[in-house]
């Protein structure tokens, strides 16, 4: 089977800092892949390179067999690469409805979905449990609901690859359980690349885990393999071993 996403020698420098350093990465269709690693490891920079928010210093990004390294972010979104922001960035002054209508009408224009804007919006809001807040301003939602709205916007893009950057950050435990269900649900129709700090969430959801450290991939494997990897424990899990 051909990977949905591969990166080859992907690097990004910020001045003297090599935030992403020569990363070779492959993601199979249908997978839920977790990316973990300490703060500043380069996880957000890496997915920003994949989504096209920032340009690489060198290397390439291949999506579904096509080199997308030089495509602008909006064109990648139209191919099916959706990115939800680590820092919640819904349109605070627009209604919940309008926030989701924007991605829905985009997929209609691109011919990636059919029907009315209204129906698409309600479908995405129902999946994320926000249907009863349609006409509230997004900025008036609770933080947890804003994170869910962010996911609803990603879903409404009908992505083939959904990138979630620390989606559970700041959520209450009860919200996290619902969230795990939601990601499982999403994974039935999309490949998921999930940056996540919360290890129980990672262990429950991920098919495979990639560990980043100092801009490089330190290890990669199943949750069991990663749990058993002493190098990872040193760098990230902080456990004493031996």
């Amino acid at each position, binding site marked *: 089977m051909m990977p949905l996403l591969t990166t080859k020698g992907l690097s990004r420098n910020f001045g003297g800092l090599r935030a992403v350093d020569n990363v070779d990465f492959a993601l199979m269709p249908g997978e839920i892949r977790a990316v973990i690693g300490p703060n500043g490891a380069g996880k957000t920079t890496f997915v920003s390179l994949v*989504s096209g*928010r920032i340009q690489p210093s060198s290397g390439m990004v291949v999506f579904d067999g096509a080199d997308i390294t030089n495509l*602008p*972010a*909006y*064109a990648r*979104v*139209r191919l099916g690469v959706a*990115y939800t*922001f680590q820092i919640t*960035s*819904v*349109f*605070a*002054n*627009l*209604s919940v*409805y*309008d926030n989701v*209508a*924007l*991605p829905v*009408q*985009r*997929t209609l*224009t*691109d011919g990636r979905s059919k029907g009315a*804007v*209204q129906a698409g919006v309600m479908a995405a809001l129902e999946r994320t449990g926000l249907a009863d807040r349609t*006409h509230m301003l997004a900025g008036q939602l609770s933080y947890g609901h804003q994170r869910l709205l962010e996911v609803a*916007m990603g879903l409404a*893009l009908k992505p083939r690859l959904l990138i979630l950057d620390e989606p559970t950050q700041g959520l209450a435990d009860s919200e996290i359980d619902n969230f795990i269900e939601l990601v499982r649900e999403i994974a039935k129709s999309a490949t998921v690349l999930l940056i996540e700090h919360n290890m129980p969430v990672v262990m429950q959801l991920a098919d495979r885990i990639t560990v980043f450290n100092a801009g490089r991939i330190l290890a990669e494997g199943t949750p069991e393999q990663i749990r058993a990897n002493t190098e990872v424990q040193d760098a990230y899990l902080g456990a004493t071993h031996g």
Partner: protein
Amino acid sequence: MKDASPAKPYALHLGVIALLFALSFVLPDYHHGLLARIMVLAVFAMGYNMLFGYVGLLSLGHAMFFAAGLYGAGLAVIHLGWSVPTAFASGVVCGAVLSLVIGVLALRTSGVAFMIVTMMFAQVFYLVILYFASWTGGDQGMVVPQPARVLTFGATSLDLTNPIVRYMSALTLFSVVLLITLAVVRSRYGRVLVAIRENEERTKMLGYDTFSNKLAAVIMSGTICAASGAAYALLFGYVGSSFASVQYSILPLLWVLLGGGATTLGPLIGTLFMYYVVDITSGYTSAYLLIVGIALILLVLFFPKGILGTIRHRWLAWLP
């Protein structure tokens, strides 16, 4: 924007148009003439609002689009002897072409740089008009002769210098642009424009080519402003470089701020209000500009959303 029923906003806008129509038969001559002029300039303000209010791009150079229409129509009549409809079309096309060129160049910047770049282009445009004084009349400007300002359809003809014809022509242009604006801001495209204003980065990550969308908005805005300029030349018969000066780039900004940015009727209200404040105060004192300035400062301090923006915020959330 909220997919609410379209009936209320359309009824309101048609009501405003009907009211302006009815006023033509009751207003005394002086106010009748003034209102015709206000309607044409409100079109200028609506064009400005399209970009400033809805997309959040603050241009300080929109006088060049108004002047492109003014000169595009005026010079076609005066030098080429074109008829009124073709001259009007000429003005509109000049505005469309100019806004395409300016858009492509100026949209490489944003924020303060965009303000400065648009102002510089407008200044160049103004100097070009002065430089080609033998054709443009320089700072004296030119009068469009009365015989050229007649619309003929076969046997019938309409004299645009006749006050009723002039008023109704102004009202027609105003109504068309108002309804276009309403349709645009309620459309999917209007939703994208507002999204760009609120957070351009996020809009890109939803799959929108924000540059192209902004360029389309600049062209739409510039073309509407040019239609206003072209109508001004043909209805009021004067083509002058003062309309290309920086003052006429700032006026539409003030009208829109006063009436309420990102409201469809705000530009009319702002233009109307400012004209009457100037009109009334200049009857009492020669320092009327001072009073206007103070009024504006108070407004920006206490009603930053403008007249209609405040009404929408407090009472009528459905206003487009």
